[in-house]
């Protein structure tokens, strides 16, 4: 078998690109199974530009019983066979894999062992994972391959094993002890969740492109993917526009692509908001999150109202010089939350006020003797009328 990896040589173990495929398929445990499955794959494996996806096969390689076979192969090829993951992930993996190329397989394996699981497609660990592997490998090859033809070839067999594509998500969790069943379940669960880990149809060699894609596509659902991508995100040069790839199993309609990008944007911003709003770490879901955001903004505005009322009652005793001193004090963010508790009786004690001012002691009433006389009568009546949030 030449290293070119002809279609006929699908089962060829010796060819550079194909051997990888073989290794994995052998891991799957059936030559005949291999033959049918790998043919289209083999054609893809011809491409030796696998650089990007070399990482993927880490876990699989360690498990595969074909170290000898792998040796001669370009490591890159093996890497991609491992898992399909979206092309972007492959690209990112490449840089981490310095030794790939003509290095010995053992080197690769060892390096894989050291590498984080996150890099490897999650499915990497199961030699028994025949169908999935097949699909994954096919996908990985598809991803690694630059030509679109491969894509066409691999698509069909892969579609048969659609859930496999989702494996990637488990990157962080999967280890050599990966359980294929678990993986299958995980994938199936992920499927309805929204094709988050779909394989990208085309393999784009360009890193910036995939980086962009990962940036655009990886939001939300795939935390593992993000972990991978973030590590490489610094490498991609900025482009004027974002390339978006259609994920596996999704329509390539321009409308749906744009919608997907938009959805990811929105979910990204929701995540940012989640960090800003205190106590919303565990909330999942836009509706609840929006409620929390609205409540938080309303509570902040109420606090402004309350404080403005408090300031209105304070006597203007201080001179301008003190204002300058004040401004210096205010420079340092103060945690003086005690002030807010005083207004609670007259107003709805919004949970945020408690959250924001945890150690609040009703100091106000003591500090400002004038104050208690004012609020209880005016608060109920006036504050409610003063509440129109904003101005």
């Amino acid at each position: 078998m030449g290293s070119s990896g002809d279609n006929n040589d699908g089962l060829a173990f010796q060819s550079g690109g194909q051997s990888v495929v073989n290794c994995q398929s052998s891991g799957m445990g059936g030559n005949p199974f291999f033959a049918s499955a790998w043919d289209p794959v083999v054609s893809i494996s011809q491409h030796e530009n696998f650089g990007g996806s070399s990482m993927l096969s880490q876990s699989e390689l360690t498990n595969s019983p074909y170290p000898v076979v792998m040796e001669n192969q370009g490591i890159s090829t093996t890497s991609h066979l491992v898992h399909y993951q979206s092309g972007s992930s492959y690209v990112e993996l490449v840089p981490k894999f310095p030794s790939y190329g003509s290095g010995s397989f053992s080197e690769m394996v060892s390096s894989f062992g050291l590498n984080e699981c996150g890099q490897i497609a999650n499915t990497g660990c199961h030699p028994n994972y025949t169908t999935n592997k097949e699909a994954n490998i096919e996908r990985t090859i598809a991803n690694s391959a630059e030509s679109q033809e491969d894509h066409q070839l691999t698509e069909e067999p892969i579609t048969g094993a659609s859930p496999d594509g989702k494996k990637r998500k488990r990157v962080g969790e999967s280890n050599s002890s990966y359980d294929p069943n678990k993986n299958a379940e995980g994938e199936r669960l992920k499927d309805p969740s929204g094709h988050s880990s779909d394989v990208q149809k085309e393999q784009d060699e360009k890193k910036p492109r995939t980086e962009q894609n990962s940036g655009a596509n990886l939001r939300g659902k795939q935390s593992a993917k993000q972990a991978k991508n973030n590590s490489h995100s610094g490498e991609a040069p900025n482009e004027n526009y974002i390339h978006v790839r259609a994920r596996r199993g999704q329509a390539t309609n321009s409308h749906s692509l744009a919608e997907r990008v938009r959805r990811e944007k929105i979910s990204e911003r929701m995540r940012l908001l989640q960090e800003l709003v205190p106590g919303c770490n565990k909330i999942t879901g836009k509706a609840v999150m929006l409620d929390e955001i609205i409540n938080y903004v309303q509570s902040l505005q109420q606090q402004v109202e309350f404080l403005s009322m408090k300031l209105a009652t304070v006597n203007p005793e201080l001179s301008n010089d003190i204002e300058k001193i004040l401004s210096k004090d205010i420079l340092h963010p103060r945690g003086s939350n005690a002030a807010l508790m005083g207004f609670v009786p007259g107003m709805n004690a919004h949970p945020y006020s408690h959250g924001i001012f945890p150690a609040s002691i009703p100091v106000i009433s003591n500090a400002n003797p004038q104050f208690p006389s004012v609020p209880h009568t005016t608060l109920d009546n006036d504050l409610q009328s003063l509440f129109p949030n904003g101005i």
Partner: protein
Amino acid sequence: MTSIYQINSATRIRFARRFLISLSRMRRASTLGPPSDEEIRTRTRRIRIVSYSSMAFAVGSSRAWSRALVLKIRNRARFRGILRNKCLASKKKRVIKRHKVSREMSKTDMLRRLVPGGAGMGICGLLEETAHYMTCLATQVKVMQSIADHYSK
């Protein structure tokens, strides 16, 4: 996402300074010893407007919400007298409409109402403005609190 929702200390300083200056201006105007309830109400309203405007000016025109807020304040100041006459006539219509609208209001609509300038944005921009607005509100509250504490000592 490249936007950063953190407020610089410079913004805080600008806000604090502006706010304090306007506060001192207001204080000079008031001469009564024990302020009446009505006066307190008026003052509260004024101080509230002053705080929002100082925050909006401190942020500047870099954010959509601050721009909208600044415009709102300026328009208010100009057309106060004119609008008062008009408001009485249109109040009836407004009341009737509100009943209908309140049922259909969605969460995004509520958020648009809360965030100044939110009506003219898509959800994507609205969320971003909300985040920045939230951080600005938080600093506003902190600064006002420290001022109030300082004055009450």
